């Protein structure tokens, strides 16, 4: 008889996430996992590989490529798909490509609307997915703190924050009509620290952009961004300086602020995070437009 044996908090979180993923696989006919290449996606992929072992995850992995992601992210994505053998689907908005949308020319709002929000809706509609698994965490942003783990979306992919289904115990309501869907957030209860600790303990591969290195950066709209290709306007590129920087989140390179750092190992990153005085989303230009902007974006269909 085992008495009073307890799982550590990370093992409890892991078990909870596995439970959620299996519930999705069992209850939905066409689920998909969003794979954005970042650290949270890496954790989700790792957990999905565990949940169905010795089999592979019984769903596809979807990457919405805005075509402005860091180059390294795309390489990393393709390598992981090959190594682990998961089923990767990549989608970019063809209308956005035709319009040659650029965050530098059209601004972050237009770029995000067309290449991210619209592209996501297109990919979900085309794929006909009834459950979309995402890596959002409740500690990231205030409106997310109130979102359910199984979060209902109507036929237009919209979220109604005032009319959410009650979610009790670990019993999830998965009932939907045709055309409706749910967003599922298996790592809702993880914090940024949990994610990093788990990556460290489990040895999960992540893109090297998270680690500090000498990189060419320019000052742009109040943050430092990486010179990742020559689509950056020349006058901006000409101001580039080499600095020791790293990224706390990964997204579109013109919209993702670098931080000055010397943290080149996981323990150093965790140390820096613990001693830091700003949240990880600070480097994300998307949140700061207006108060409650993430809540607005979610209502409109941005995950």
């Amino acid at each position, binding site marked *: *008889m*085992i*008495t*009073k*044996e307890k*799982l*550590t*908090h*990370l*093992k*409890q979180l*892991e*078990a*909870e996430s*596995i*439970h959620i993923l*299996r*519930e999705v*696989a*069992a209850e939905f006919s066409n689920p998909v996992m969003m794979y954005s290449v970042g650290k949270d996606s890496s954790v989700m992929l790792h957990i999905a*590989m*565990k*949940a*169905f*072992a*010795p*089999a592979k995850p019984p769903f596809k992995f979807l990457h919405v490529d805005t075509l402005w992601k860091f180059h390294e992210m795309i390489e990393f994505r393709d390598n992981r798909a090959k190594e*682990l053998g998961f089923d990767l689907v990549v989608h970019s908005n063809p209308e956005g490509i035709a319009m040659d949308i650029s965050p530098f020319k059209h601004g972050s709002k237009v770029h995000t609307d067309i290449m991210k929000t619209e592209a996501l809706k297109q990919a979900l509609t085309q794929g006909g997915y009834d459950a979309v698994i995402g890596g959002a965490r409740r500690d990231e942003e*205030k*409106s997310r*703190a*109130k979102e359910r783990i199984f979060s209902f979306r109507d036929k237009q992919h919209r979220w109604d*924050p*005032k009319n*959410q*289904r*009650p*979610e*009790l*115990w*670990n*019993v999830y*309501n998965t*009932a939907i009509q045709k055309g409706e869907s749910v967003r599922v957030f298996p790592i*809702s*209860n993880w*914090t940024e620290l949990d994610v990093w600790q788990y990556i460290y*303990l*489990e040895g999960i591969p992540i893109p090297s952009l998270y680690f500090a290195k000498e990189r060419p950066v320019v000052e742009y709209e109040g943050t430092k961004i990486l010179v990742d290709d020559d689509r950056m306007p020349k006058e901006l590129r000409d101001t580039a300086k080499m600095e020791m920087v790293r990224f706390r989140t990964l997204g579109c390179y013109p919209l993702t602020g670098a931080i000055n750092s010397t943290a080149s190992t996981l*323990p*150093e990153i*965790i*140390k820096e995070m613990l*001693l*830091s*005085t*700003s*949240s990880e989303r*600070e480097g994300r230009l998307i949140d700061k437009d207006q*108060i409650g902007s993430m809540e607005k974006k979610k209502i409109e269909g941005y995950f």
Partner: protein
Amino acid sequence: MSTKNEKIALDIEAYLKEHENKDMLRFLTCGSVDDGKSTLIGRMLYDSKMIFDDQLSAAESESEKYGTTGEKIDMALLVDGLQSEREQGITIDVAYRFFTTENRKFIIADTPGHEQYTRNMVTGASTADVAIILIDARKGILTQTRRHSFIVNLLGIEHVIVAINKMDLVDFSQDVFNEIKQAYSELADELGIKNTYYIPLSALNGDNVVDRSTQTPWYTGKPLLELLDSMDISKEIKEEDFRFAVQYVNRPNLDFRGFCGTIASGSIKVGDEITVLPSGKTTRVKSIINAGDITESDREATTGEVYAPMAVTITTEDEVDISRGDMLVHTKALPRVSNSLKVMLVWMDESSMQIGKTYDIKRGTSVMPGVFEHINYKIDVNTYERTQVDALDLNDIASCKMVLTRPIAADKYKENRQTGSFIIVDRITNNTVGAGMIVDVAKREEETKVKVHREYTQAEIALNKYIRENFPEWNCKEL
């Protein structure tokens, strides 16, 4: 704080080592904005460094717009999530917040306190191990205190911290504290709440939140955070309590057929004899995969013994029929199997609950139709008075008789929160319209048939006859 930061700065590896072995505690905060609930949570998050400078400066700019504390930063604005809430200054929905100490990760279910949000509080309470009930020292025990305590007890929370707040407004009077403590302990006895803890607080000024207050030299207990950090909430894991709801059948090829699920309680090892419920077939455990042990290089790692709340995959010696929704248990300790259950319901929908209407009942991983045949009584959450009613409205709590279309292996909620709980789903709107807790399970002979009041067409009767005559192995009943 500073000693923690020193440790991080000096030896991060040692710090990480310590944090690997943390456990987790989920707690619920009950109270309204007037009691200083959001302020208390804001204080805990801020003092444990879960609020960053950019969030603080956002709160500062919002304080000017919506704040109620004048010059000071409104801690409540740090935690009130949705824009409509910030404007109205109330907390409508359940919000989950997180902070950590060296010993524990904490998940706070922050729920609204007003009566019209009883369902939200029930939701938050369903996963909590501990409840903090806030009492305004100037007001003492109010109707809402009785309501909150009732719900906390109903949802099976065994540890209640009574936080007597706003002590600064009663000059940190020991007499006031003792009076409230005495009054609450009577309430706790009335309800049967097992473990109570009392703390004199000022959330606004931080007295007895993180550090012991110099204002309350008469208080010998721990400050709130220290109490949360050290209280023993562990439960014994007894092997025979093993309950495993089959969640997913993993069949990648003909050689492997594994039953995936999360262990609700107890433990199991390779070779144990198990029974599949409700069918009653028996077999033995052939192998166990603990999903947590799987690595990229070893995707077939197996283990000998597993326990709650691990997520595992079990294979069996014999090819018995096992599917999603079945319950695996030890053959030596079988639970009752029945389709007739006495339950406590919390109704959570605007449209009222109707006796005799068919709802989908989701318990664990099984979903089946069921009806509520009878409402034994409705209970008033403020006065605990029982009344006879014919239907249940939003936020009503009642004892009912539930009859399912097929039997399930069931435990009483107070003995097993995982297998004793269920949600109620409307078959048309798909909304979660209620939540329930099993109080008692009828013995087999008392099982009742579902009374379905419907007329069948000639075609349906013919179909039934055709199935009975041609597919006897389906065990189809005659209409």
